[in-house]
């Protein structure tokens, strides 16, 4: 991991006024938010949270079955959230968690009502706007028993040349029979350093579906969320699509710890480098049988760069079934020739395959976000890098 110099960033004084009505934002800001997954004009949301630098500028829920609050307010209201605050993530884990513990700028607290099936997603965006902004975030998500929730969270910086840092702690609690679909879209910039620290627990029969999309340049991301499947039949599926242009350093992965019978863990990542570095990790540990885990990493090098896949399977008891598939390199000649036999020249065939590779249709994203991502893929595709 690259060393991060905290002195480069401002962790104090970057406050902003609240925005009561997000639809009043100008078109450019709306576009930025949309690229990070927040559609301010959408009727189809259950709640919205927007953090800019050190301030929560907008927060609210339109569905009584789900609370969406600024973490600071939630800590006040619920006596420091003793059951949830720093219960999964260790405060002293590293300088980033320490920074977030000592000087909290914000983050969301989202909690469902027991049994509530919340259809429309909760949208969140953590935005870096002021130059050299250093942001300390702490998010807590509680999916109560038998409830269902979808969260779309975007992280973005105001423009490509921007310098900043984002440290974000997330603690996710999925209670018995709960289901969370958590989609994260990152849209940083070439000088942004990102250190998410995420830990989740899934109880009996609970499901966590996690999607992660990172198509734009970022200086340096390092994250390794850990999910504990602690109840019988708990399921976690991680699906990520990452692109590293030249100058990007992406070190990400997922760890799933299966501690109960009939749990299932799946980690699938599709990565492309066009000159940057991707370290794609994955670790599935099975401590209880029967349990099943599958790890899959597909990586394409398109014009330089490095992809380093580090998959780990660890079974500590008999009867755990873990499998792994990985392929790193170039596009299979067989696929290119198949498409050429339908009349596409080599370039068209390659670009069709790359677009398919990055396709995120299966993530079930809201339409506008899907269109935005398709647009980004098309841009990538038309750039010289591919």
């Amino acid at each position, binding site marked *: 991991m690259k060393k991060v110099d905290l002195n480069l960033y401002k962790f104090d004084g970057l406050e902003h006024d609240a925005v009561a009505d997000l639809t009043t934002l100008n078109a450019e800001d709306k576009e930025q938010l949309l690229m990070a997954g927040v559609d301010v004009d959408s009727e189809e949301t259950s709640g919205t949270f927007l953090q800019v630098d050190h301030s929560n500028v907008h927060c609210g829920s339109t569905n009584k079955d789900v609370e969406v609050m600024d973490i600071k307010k939630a800590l006040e209201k619920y006596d420091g959230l003793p059951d949830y605050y720093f219960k999964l993530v260790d405060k002293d884990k590293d300088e980033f968690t320490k920074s977030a513990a000592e000087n909290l700028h914000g983050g969301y607290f989202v909690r469902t009502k027991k049994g509530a099936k919340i259809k429309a997603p909760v949208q969140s965006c953590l935005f870096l706007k002021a130059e050299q902004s250093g942001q300390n975030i702490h998010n807590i998500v509680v999916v109560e028993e038998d409830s269902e929730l979808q969260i779309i969270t975007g992280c973005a910086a105001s423009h490509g040349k921007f310098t900043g840092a984002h440290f974000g702690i997330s603690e996710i609690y999925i209670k018995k029979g709960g289901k969370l679909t958590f989609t994260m879209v990152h849209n940083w910039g070439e000088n942004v350093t990102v250190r998410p620290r995420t830990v989740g627990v899934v109880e009996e029969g609970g499901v966590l579906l996690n999607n992660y999309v990172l198509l734009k340049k970022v200086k340096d991301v390092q994250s390794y969320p850990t999910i504990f499947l602690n109840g019988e039949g708990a399921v976690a599926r991680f699906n990520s699509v990452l692109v590293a242009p030249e100058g990007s350093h992406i070190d990400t992965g997922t760890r799933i710890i299966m501690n109960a019978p009939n749990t299932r863990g799946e980690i699938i990542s*599709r990565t492309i480098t066009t000159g940057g570095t991707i370290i794609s990790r994955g670790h599935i540990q099975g401590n209880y049988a029967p349990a099943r885990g599958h790890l899959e990493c*597909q990586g394409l090098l398109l014009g330089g760069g490095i992809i380093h896949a580090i998959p780990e399977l660890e079974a500590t008891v008999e009867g755990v079934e873990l499998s792994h598939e990985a392929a790193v390199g170039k596009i*299979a*000649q*067989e*696929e290119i*020739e*198949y*498409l*050429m*036999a*339908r*009349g*596409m*020249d*080599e370039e068209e*065939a390659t670009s*069709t*395959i790359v*677009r*398919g*590779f*990055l*396709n995120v*249709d299966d993530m079930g994203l809201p339409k506008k976000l899907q269109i935005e991502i398709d647009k980004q893929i098309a841009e990538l595709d038309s750039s010289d890098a591919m």
Partner: protein
Amino acid sequence: MLKIEDLHVSIGDKEVIKGLNLHIKEGETFILFGPNGSGKTSLLMTLMGFSNYTVTKGKITFKGEDITYAPIYERARLGVGMSFQRPPTIHGLKTRHLVEMCGNGSKVDVERLAKKVNMETFLDRDINSGFSGGEIKRSELLQLMAQNPGMVLFDEPESGVDLENMHLIGEMVRTLLDGEIRPNLDLSMKEQKEMGSSTCGLIITHTGHILDYINADRGQVLYNGHLCCEARPRDILEHIRKYGYQECVKCLK
């Protein structure tokens, strides 16, 4: 339409086609027989232009153009269409999208074509992902119909196909060969018939089931990289049934 002269093909160091001559005229369908490993698939792959198959000698002419060393897509655009036996899965590429692209610029009525081969429900699936043997065949036919090729290369249309699907596939292959599929034009059947068909075919078969559906004019046996025993396809089939391929060796001498 297709003319192959003294063709020699190698895969790596191994010569798999050893001096092959073949002429297929406009509208003609040629049936290729031959024991396992005799080089049939290799011949088709070479005609399509796959990179593993190196032409070391000889010439392939299609529609008067020398395509011996032409890139795959040029052959496809010239009208060579091939049904793959084991096509690769391409993640995120929807069948619908691929079929549209098969039109190469001309508009394809995907839904209508898909209906003909019972593939409507596959259009939004990733191409070939988890397709069964018979489904692959239908998907390949769907793509070919959208391509509307001047020459159809089909490797074992009956392998892995149940009886019902065999009927469907047989009918579709015939339609392709009869040139009745106009993916873009809005012509009545009658008008299409009148245009006549110039489509030719090169079809590999072991069982001969496909012969129940198409009008196959000629056939030959590929044996150890050489063609021999030119006859009517049904007669060849009958002969192989009775005497096996061993007889072919004699024929070659």
